């Protein structure tokens, strides 16, 4: 009862926030723009839709709360909120750094820094991924930019695969999530780098340029650096944040609904365990800055299976597939993704056998 009263007390404050902000933000740009582009009358613009949505949800809050008061739903909501809250600071940190690098470091720098021999450029680019902090959502556009600036595609792809997995933020998050298994951090680094280099060399051997559609337009032209920086931050938070919510929902569903016996059954067989977590990583599409915490919670599984989760997740998952298809073309993604999956699982098993 006491908790109920506390929630009620919070409501007026909430209403004030949700009602005011969209109006203020939505209305202000229209006033100084009398000669605005002809707006189709009666069209649902997104500020209006957002205001209506928030208003509706505030009005419907007691039915919503009642629906969420069942223990399953409560536990689902708690885990959902927990995953989002826990991952958001890491996401924001990564996005800030990646925007700074994307805006203030000229892409020509990367082209100059790489060796001209592709076979050498691949491992160098793979290692260079370690200094670009960010999650996989950030590395896809950066890899696209590298290709556009004349970096050999094999090296750009090695970078694309390694950057989200081996950078300091992700490795720190892994160390924090596995306080009792520090060798997990080393294993993740080694296995991910292995896959990235293998894929780069493989592309150099058998890859064909016509599989890859080069990305068309440059993003930050005609903008001041500050504008480009904040634009990149906004864009990345909104994108990666949206996908993060999807991942959090899937993780919460798994945690709250799936009977522990399922996972136990899968965890009992070592081969099934690795495959199950690899597939789970693809389906969950969790940001690489947060996936270590989810892996840490899958305590029934062997460390090798959880390593597979951590190696596969940042390299290929549903949202990455969509982003790669968008940046490099569908023909590329259809060939690249399955190959990455197979190599990532193999590398995780190999590294797990040696290190864990």
């Amino acid at each position, binding site marked *: 009862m006491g908790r109920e009263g506390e929630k009620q007390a919070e409501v007026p404050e909430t209403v004030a926030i949700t009602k005011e902000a969209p109006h203020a933000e939505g209305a202000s740009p229209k006033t100084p723009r009398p000669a605005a582009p002809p707006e189709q009358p009666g069209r649902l613009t997104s500020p209006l839709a*957002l205001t209506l949505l928030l208003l509706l949800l505030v009005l419907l809050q007691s039915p919503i709360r009642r629906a969420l008061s069942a223990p399953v739903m409560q*536990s689902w909501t708690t885990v959902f909120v*927990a995953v989002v809250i*826990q991952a958001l600071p890491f996401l924001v940190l990564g996005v800030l750094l990646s925007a700074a690098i994307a805006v203030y470091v000229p892409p020509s720098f990367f082209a100059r820094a790489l060796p001209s021999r592709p076979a050498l450029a691949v491992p160098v680019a793979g290692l260079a991924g370690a200094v670009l902090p960010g999650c996989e959502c950030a590395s896809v556009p950066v890899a696209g930019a590298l290709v556009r600036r004349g970096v050999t595609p094999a090296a750009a792809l090695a970078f694309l695969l390694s950057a989200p997995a081996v950078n300091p933020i992700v490795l720190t998050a892994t160390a924090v999530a596995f306080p009792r298994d520090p060798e997990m951090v080393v294993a993740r680094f080694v296995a991910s780098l292995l896959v990235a280099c293998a894929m780069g060399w493989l592309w150099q051997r058998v890859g064909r340029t016509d599989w890859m559609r080069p990305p068309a337009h440059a993003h930050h032209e005609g903008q001041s650096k500050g*504008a480009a920086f*904040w634009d990149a931050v906004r864009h990345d938070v*909104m994108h990666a944040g949206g996908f993060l*919510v999807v991942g959090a929902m899937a993780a919460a569903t798994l945690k709250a609904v799936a009977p522990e016996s399922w996972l136990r059954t899968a965890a009992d067989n070592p081969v099934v365990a690795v495959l199950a977590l690899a597939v789970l990583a693809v389906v969950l599409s969790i940001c690489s800055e947060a996936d270590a915490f*989810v892996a840490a919670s899958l305590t029934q599984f062997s460390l090798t299976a959880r390593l597979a989760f951590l190696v596969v997740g940042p390299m290929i998952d549903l949202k990455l597939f969509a982003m790669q298809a968008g940046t490099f073309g569908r023909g590329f993604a259809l060939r690249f993704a399955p190959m990455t999956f197979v190599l990532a699982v193999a590398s995780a098993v190999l590294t797990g056998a040696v290190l864990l």
Partner: protein
Amino acid sequence: MNRQSQAAVLFLLGAALLHAGTTDLYLRYVKSGLRPLLLASGAILIVTALATALYERRRARQEQEGDGHTHPEPRISWLLVLPLLALILVAPPALGSYSATRTGTALQEPLAYPALPATGPLRLSLVDYAGRAVYDHGRTLAGREVQVTGFVALDHGGTPYLIRMALNCCAADAQPVKVALTGHIPPVLQPDTWLTVTGTYTPRRVADPVNDGPIPFLEVTSAKPVPAPRDPYDESWNN
């Protein structure tokens, strides 16, 4: 979603993080050490929202005609409204008896058993009691009066447990540590109520039906309801 709406969502998200970080709300979901990061990222989100609104305004003023330059963000961004509402409107409680009874006890062997005060009732954390009872066979507990705090959960057979969820990072990895109750158990036990139980060590033990983990017993002499602690999770494993 156009940029004005994005600025609004970013602002609200930042405000929600600040709200959670400045109150004890965040302790229901994440470990206490995450607080500075939460506050910083909340502030950054608000700055991003303001910068977006500012640049959007400037851009709108410069552009005479809309040349179709605005490319809308994918629909996925709308999902960011969900955690916002879940956090501000619903504010779900910390994980309780539902998750605890579905998950096996996660008791780990303690690294050491620090000396306890020689006299008076022993106030122990539930995890500490369980560790000493199971792995030290109650050597430091025998003949002493102990006090532990946790919430109540009943399993399918109606056996009462006193439970504390242990946390590494966020509620997604929270796992229960369970102590079974015996002796003078209060006649009516409501799941999820917090109790401070006074009792004595008993060597009796049972295997958790979920994962066969060890659950020690506590011989209850008295129990009194207490308000939920500020941090509902046990974070001793973080150190």
